[in-house]
């Protein structure tokens, strides 16, 4: 490393001084996510009928390397079915403290019911609040538990801390609308 190289390096740092910082001031500014980002799970529905895609087969729970998913299946009532199959998930819980957001559940799911979405603001105070039940993850629910609690407290709509690169959610997240 001669002095010339040092001078070159000094030139680079001085040049950067006059460039605009690339940092996102996150809480005020929204983070831009790439399309493949894996955040909180979403349980999708069939777009036409509104029936849940999940048939309670527990393959996601079997595939989960962190044992974060618990599924309890029940028989569908033929008159008012919850899912198009014979059975549906009576209880569907994911422990977000254990989840490593690897996406194995998504791959194991035969019906494409569980999909990793884009929400990532899930910090909370109590252990039990990290267990997300079906009603926290079904399509149409915007925000995580603490986000929704905060929104109710303030009387304002949930503010998501991200925006999508390109503005469109992924194809498998059909029915999910991010403002």
């Amino acid at each position, binding site marked *: *490393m*001669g*002095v*010339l190289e*040092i001078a070159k*390096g*000094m030139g*680079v*740092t*001085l040049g*950067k*001084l006059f*460039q*605009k*910082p*690339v*940092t996102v*001031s996150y809480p005020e500014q929204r983070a831009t996510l790439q399309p493949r980002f894996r955040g909180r799970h979403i349980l999708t529905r069939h777009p036409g009928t509104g029936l849940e895609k999940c048939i309670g087969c527990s393959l996601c729970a079997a595939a989960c390397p962190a044992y974060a998913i618990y599924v309890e299946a029940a028989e569908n009532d033929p008159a008012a079915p919850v899912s198009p199959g014979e059975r549906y998930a009576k209880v569907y819980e994911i422990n977000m403290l254990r989840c490593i957001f690897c996406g194995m559940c998504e791959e194991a799911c035969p019906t494409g019911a569980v999909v990793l979405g884009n929400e990532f603001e899930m910090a909370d105070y109590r252990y039990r609040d990290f267990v997300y039940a079906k009603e926290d993850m079904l399509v149409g629910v915007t925000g995580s538990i603490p986000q929704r609690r905060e929104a109710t407290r303030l009387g304002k709509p949930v503010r998501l801390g991200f925006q999508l690169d390109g503005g469109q959610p992924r194809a498998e997240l059909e029915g999910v609308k991010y403002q």
Partner: protein
Amino acid sequence: MPDWLATLLISLLKAVLVVLGLLTTFAYMTLIERRLLGRMQLRPGPNRVGPMGLLQPAADAIKSIFKEDLTVTLADKLVYTLAPIVAIGMALTAFGGLPAGPAGSLFGENPWVYNLDTGILALLALTSMGVYGIFLGGWASGSKYPILGGLRSSAQMISYELGMGLSLLGLLMIVGTTSFHGIVGWQAQNGPMILFQSLGFVLFLISSFAETNRTPFDLPEAEQEIVAGYLTEYSAIKWALFQMAEYVNMITASAVMATLFFGGWKGPQFLNALIPGISDWPLIWLIVKIAFFLFLFIWVRATLPRLRYDQLMRFGWKLVLPLALANTMLTAAFLAFRGSGGLWFLGVLSFAGVLALLVLSDRVRVLWNQPSVRPEGDIVRAGGD
């Protein structure tokens, strides 16, 4: 009020002002440094506390004062407490001798706290006392890493102290006085010393970086190797005092470089044609020059990686010291045999020396930084075959 009492009180007041000024500068230096480093790394830097992060130093101060002050069981309590005080005391004292304007320009008073004929010598002596702070701090912590770090830091500082002192000898020979006023006055007459002693200045600059423990010579805080060096066991306000000492030393080093090589508190003479008397305005020029050098310190920190310890030692002993000696001998020989020639020839020689060093840096480096040769059979490989 007797005369001596008035003088004493005014001196005390000036000393307090200097200390306050230095500590405020230290506080905002930390902020400016973090902001600049941030911007050089394409991020905004601290901007949360107050408008534009301007209250960050206050927040840091409150934090370090009220933080729990831990003392290790095995520490030598007295020396452990004294070491940071020695470090900051010496750093603050050293600044007082530097003149910041013409005599009588500070509301009728002289803009310096004390004026010694041995100005540079006193300053070098005072800054060297800072080594005691570092070494005693490392020793009194009663722990392994601090003592290693303290040993290392004091070895580094003593090594570069030599090059620092020697690189100034040429300047002293030309000027013929060690008083800062004499040096500033000489430069007002003959032009800034950098023109005649560029080699000496480069060596002094490098030694200053090492003396103030700044990157790329910031081995005292090489956290990968020795945790945090001599201040590993320090916390809260004592830690902050060490940090303060480092920054105050940096400000002093900048002021010394400005005074010795760049005309001190005197501004460029040609500006007098535009605004009469501008080159004599007190404080302004010194502050501008100090700010420039402080920016240089930060800029280098943003760019260069840390040297390895053996590289640092080789660099000090095999390059800086001999070159400073060569610079001294060159100046001495020139002054002895110059006949009727002006000083400008020495300036050209000195500048040629700097240029040669820059151009040949890759070849010179091999001379002083040759890897040590080991006998074949002696190589130890990790893991084994």
